């Protein structure tokens, strides 16, 4: 009797678990399905009420039409340059900074770390005007720099990585030092491999947020040649009147694909890193 009860209970528990997962999955996947569905509809189908789910004839031409609406190759190139540069520069700044905060003792360490955290809490909407004026002063408004320079340091990344580095036992570092490993080698051979999950997470977050950035590039750029994909896609929208949602969504699908690729790559890395790292 008792065993029957508990197996029934276990079954119920896992069923409820699965049901919850399905609900959450549905909530997250719904906007994507909606986007893909709309991107393949005709103009008339996008206006239908109740909404169309499966387009009668998939309109693959919507993608071509979206891409023809502006210099999308330039936008894509800009997005790629901006995002990759930001990530590379952030890693170059973040790893030494996090290492120093985690493993060194120096004057004003806590105050400096506090400043890093402070930077992490200030939203871009507050700083964009002074930053724009500064960039205009330096005559950089016609370049991609205003979209890169303000993001060279990633406060959230430094914070997360520092926590990770702090968990790495002092003994491992001592042992490496005894073997005459220099600081650079130490970081490269010990700190970075052990913090792989954190690095992959930070890279993913950083990529997604800068790839999707809309407000900052809008206020920092005045010409089409230095704008990223997000602005190109927002240009598909009508200011007044009826927007061509099927075209806008086709543009959005194109915008999202790189994120999915990076996500697939990064999520694998995260899992791998968890499996191989000796600690935990």
């Amino acid at each position: 009797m008792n065993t029957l009860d508990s197996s029934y209970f276990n079954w119920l528990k896992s069923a409820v678990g699965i049901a919850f997962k399905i609900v959450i999955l549905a909530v997250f996947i719904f906007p994507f399905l909606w986007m893909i569905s709309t991107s393949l509809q005709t103009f008339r189908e996008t206006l239908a009420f109740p909404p169309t789910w499966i387009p009668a004839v998939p309109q693959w031409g919507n993608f071509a039409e979206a891409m023809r609406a502006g210099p999308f190759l330039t936008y894509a190139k800009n997005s790629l340059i901006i995002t990759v540069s930001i990530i590379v520069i952030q890693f170059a700044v973040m790893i030494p900074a996090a290492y120093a905060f985690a493993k060194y003792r120096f004057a004003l360490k806590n105050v400096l770390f506090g400043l890093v955290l402070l930077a992490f809490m200030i939203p871009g909407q507050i700083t964009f005007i002074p930053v724009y004026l500064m960039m205009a002063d330096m005559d950089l408004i016609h370049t991609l720099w205003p979209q890169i320079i303000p993001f060279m340091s990633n406060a959230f990344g430094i914070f997360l990585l520092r926590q990770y580095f702090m968990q790495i036992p002092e003994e491992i570092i001592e042992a490496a030092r005894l073997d005459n490993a220099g600081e650079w080698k130490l970081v490269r051979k010990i700190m970075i491999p052990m913090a792989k999950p954190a690095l992959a997470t930070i890279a993913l977050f950083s990529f997604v947020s800068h790839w999707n950035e809309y407000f900052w590039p809008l206020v920092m750029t005045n010409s089409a040649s230095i704008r990223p994909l997000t602005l190109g896609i927002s240009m598909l929208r009508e200011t007044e009147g009826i927007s061509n949602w099927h075209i806008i969504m086709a543009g959005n699908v194109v915008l999202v694909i790189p994120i999915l690729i990076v996500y697939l790559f990064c999520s694998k890395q995260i899992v791998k890193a968890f499996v191989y790292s000796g600690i935990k």
Partner: protein
Amino acid sequence: MKNKGVLLLTLTLVLGLLAGCGGGSGGGNAGSGAKGDPASANSAGTADAAASGGKTTVQFWHSLGGKNGEYMDALIQRFNESHNDIEVVGTYQGGYDETVTKLQQAVASDTAPDVTMLERAYVQMFADSEVLEDLAPYLKGSGISADDFTAGLMGHSYFNDQLVSLPLNRSTPILHVNKTLLDEQGLKVPTTWEELKNAANALVVKEGNEYKRYGLTMPYDTWYPIAMISQSGGRFFNEESTSVGFVDNGVGQEVFGYLKELQGTGALYYPPAQDSGNIVNSMFVEGKVGMMFQSTGSIGGLSSSVDFDYVTAFLPKNDQFANPTGGANVAMLAGSKNKEAAWEFIRWMETDPQGGLQFILQSGYLPFTKQMVESAEMKELWAKEPNRKVAYDQLQYAVDTNMDVAWPEVMHEFFSAIEAIMYDSKDIAATLDTFKKEAERILAE
């Protein structure tokens, strides 16, 4: 070893790309000896004349995306093809509000364009900061009279007797009607509030507790209540711009009372704020609502997607016909260094048959000069699409009573009042009273 190589490679690649793109970003007009030298190419956008053989570059900012953006690009291209000495660079700067934000920071940092599109309600604010050029002398110099423009669209053009902007892509709210549905019920297109109420109620289809069809709808916007306020003899701001002109005289109570009454019987569907314009458009196209207050900007899209008899009509009158106007004007920045060329672009866009006229014919915005209205092309279009003519004819009743430097700020308060009344069914009198006090506080500043 391998990792280091990859890192180095990536860095080189990124830096190479950066350098390459820095050179390219100066844009197509830097064809001179600037190649491969990012510093000189970067400044090509601003200091232009010398580099490109005596061509003056005019920067023009606009807010048109989608199809209308393409029509605007075509207009700019036509201008450039017909002018050897001027190159207009048109750039989309986001929606109307985003363009305003960008203009504010650009003026402060001396990176503003020469010519800009400006949503009409913001003209006063910029003119008050003295950043817009007075166009009257230019107009005179080109032998154009202010009377050549459509009178109903000139409301936002003047500030302290200066002509600070000219109409460009202008629209107005209008009544869109599913005539097939009205005919089924034996109803005629309403011309008064009373008829509108009867028709809207007659169109309601209710099954159980669910409305299958509504009579009337309108987007969540200040435009429509303001139209109804002026139809009832009120003004949004009073003549002196010290307070609002529709609370103490009971007009506000009448307008919102009317809307709430219709909402209560399903005669009015008031959409959720987010994306309200799209929601009402699709409901109208699908026949889920019979009539709609909506911008003239929707006529083109609706005509091409409805499968019923679709007509437009004047917004019904209460005491009188009245309607506000919307859309954007064009203005010249006082800080421009190329004013002659900038004016030539504005003049050409406003008056040349190859300029604004083509854009208006394509986009469906309202014709803004008498010359346009009388052109053979416009007459031909109106014969084919009488719905567009109705929009223009309604301009004889155009009146804008929300013109004030403080409007953008008061607007937010008015939105809150609309939300309180339409969504939360708060007491109308109390809500409007609070709104009036807030508006007076803002106007007194």
